[in-house]
């Protein structure tokens, strides 16, 4: 890449980091206030006990576990998509990867927090960590909750490293273009990166290996989250298809979150030159594909249950189809299928605005889907004497809203501290287009990504 172009690209992408308007502080203050309200509410719950929530026998898992599954699902946006696009050498991935990988890390952190919020005595959360305790009770590796610990820890560690490694050359860039405290901080973060041919090659190889390793880990994480449900003999949970069904739903909601995040970055950080309509169209096509896959899984699950006509399962089936949960169920169907399918299957509507509308719809629909998996089944377990109802209380609603604010806050702060688009990868993409490379190995240019 020639010098003026490289300098302009760096200037554009570093601008959000080096210049701060009052709007940024206003947004951070607003989001921080909501997060603080959430923390305060959680403290209130700790002080008063779980009686202030709507959680009660037999529905012990409700909003918090819904949020846990939802956020772990959202985390599939980043590392998985980024790893797949990296392995298939899709040229259009370059401006997208970091935006996506950040979502993974923050969504995983928020998701992993919910089992702790869900604890009556969260100061004993370390009991979740499988280690031999002083009571000589050893970890029970046959418990799906222990599998969760291993899966989420592995995915979080891998995702953090997958995010951090390609940030090192960009830290070096910031180090060289700043002064004062920034130079010192980014200099330390750059680890003395020079940019020798050996360093570049090792970084590329490491990213390739990690991409290969992280894809099965990502798939395993949501499969294992699904095992939290499917290992239990609860109506409409005990299903062999829950693993792939959860993974498909996770990727579905993850792509939707990525589209929303990219649209926000494009608008508020003025990234129009780097996040093109083609990126949204390509991700929109992926979203459409996942929409169809999700619908297929829902149909297969519903048909099998209905055809089997087993009494316990049918109670849950009907309560969601035409009972108390029917309004939520059909809203979910509209949000996850009708709206995104209509918008994304028509080329004329597959614009940036169209993709964002479809994505918001999917996010709402997928949250409802998680809720409808958790609550109706627990409320209708086999014998009617054990049935129960659930209504969320303000405590749960505030904490849920606060986590969405926390995600936005973390994302906003990250985009202030780190180039949200990988600068060196973007530069490499420009010159690799002109490189002499075998046709089958060459990256497809942006405009020709999917003819």
């Amino acid at each position: 890449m020639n010098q003026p172009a490289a300098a302009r690209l760096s200037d554009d992408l570093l601008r959000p980091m080096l210049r701060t308007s009052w709007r940024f502080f206003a947004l951070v203050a607003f989001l921080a206030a909501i997060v603080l309200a959430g923390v305060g509410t959680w403290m209130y719950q700790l002080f008063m006990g779980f009686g202030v929530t709507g959680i009660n026998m037999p529905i012990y898992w409700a909003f918090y576990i819904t949020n846990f599954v939802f956020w772990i699902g959202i985390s599939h946006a980043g590392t998985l998509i980024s790893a797949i696009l990296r392995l298939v050498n899709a040229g259009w991935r370059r401006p997208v990867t970091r935006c996506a990988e950040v979502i993974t890390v923050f969504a995983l952190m928020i998701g992993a927090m919910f089992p702790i919020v869900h604890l009556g005595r969260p100061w004993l959360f370390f009991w979740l960590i499988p280690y031999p305790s002083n009571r000589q009770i050893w970890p029970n590796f046959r418990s799906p909750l222990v599998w969760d610990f291993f899966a989420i820890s592995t995915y979080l560690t891998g995702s953090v490293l997958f995010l951090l490694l390609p940030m090192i050359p960009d830290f070096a860039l910031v180090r060289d273009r700043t002064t004062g405290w920034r130079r010192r901080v980014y200099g330390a973060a750059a680890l003395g990166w020079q940019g020798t041919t050996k360093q570049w090659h090792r970084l590329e190889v490491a990213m390739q290996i990690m991409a290969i390793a992280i894809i099965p880990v990502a798939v395993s994480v949501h499969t294992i989250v699904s095992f939290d449900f499917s290992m239990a003999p609860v109506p409409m949970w005990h299903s062999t298809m829950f693993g792939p069904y959860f993974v498909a739903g996770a990727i579905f909601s993850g792509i939707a979150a990525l589209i929303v995040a990219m649209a926000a970055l494009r608008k508020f950080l003025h990234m129009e030159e780097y996040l093109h309509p083609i990126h949204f169209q390509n991700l929109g096509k992926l979203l459409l594909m996942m929409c169809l896959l999700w619908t297929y899984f829902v149909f297969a699950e519903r048909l099998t249950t209905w055809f089997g006509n087993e009494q316990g399962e049918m109670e849950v089936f009907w309560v969601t189809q035409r009972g108390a949960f029917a309004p939520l169920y059909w809203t979910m169907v509209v949000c996850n299928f009708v709206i995104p399918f209509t918008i994304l299957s028509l080329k004329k509507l597959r614009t940036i605005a169209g993709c964002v509308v479809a994505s918001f719809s999917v996010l709402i629909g997928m949250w409802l889907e998680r809720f409808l998996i958790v609550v109706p089944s627990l409320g209708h377990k086999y014998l009617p004497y054990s049935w129960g109802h659930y209504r969320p209380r303000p405590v749960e609603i505030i904490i849920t809203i606060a986590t969405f604010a926390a995600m936005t806050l973390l994302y906003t702060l990250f985009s202030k501290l780190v180039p949200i688009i990988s600068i060196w990868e973007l530069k490499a993409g420009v010159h690799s287009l002109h490189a002499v490379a075998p046709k089958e190995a060459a990256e497809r240019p942006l405009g020709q990504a999917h003819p």
Partner: protein
Amino acid sequence: MTAVYALYPDADSAQHAVDRLRAAGIDEGRITVISGEPYEEYAFAQGDRATWMFRIAAIGGVVGLGVATWLTTMTERAWPLKTGNMPIVAWWPNLIVMFELTMLFAIVSTVATLLVTARLPARGPRLYDPAVTAGRVLVGVENPAAGSTDAVERALLAAGVSEVRRV
């Protein structure tokens, strides 16, 4: 560390400079190319490509598998709880933990290999110029052999720059 280097406006002229240095008989191992972006398609980037990273990652994975197998079976035998009519050493659930630790060890060993082979974090003085991140490509010779400095300078200048720097 001593070095002689020049900054080139693009990778083509950097390649030209490397060719000149080679033609001048400079030891390949002493030639350093530093850039703000990877130029994998150029000949100057082909020298350091041999790596054991894939094998080390695989070895890391095997170690992780071994550790997980030991951890699960040892703990199950040390506290033999009968759960859900499963055997004490229950391989189906253990496979999940074994898979996760295999991948975790593979990932961590990859990162460790990267840090070691790329010599990160850096210690001591190294050849570098901040102009690199502004788009220039640095071509230099580290610790040039006694008496070869002039030849290095001539080769770098012949590749189309007006200034050669010494550190």
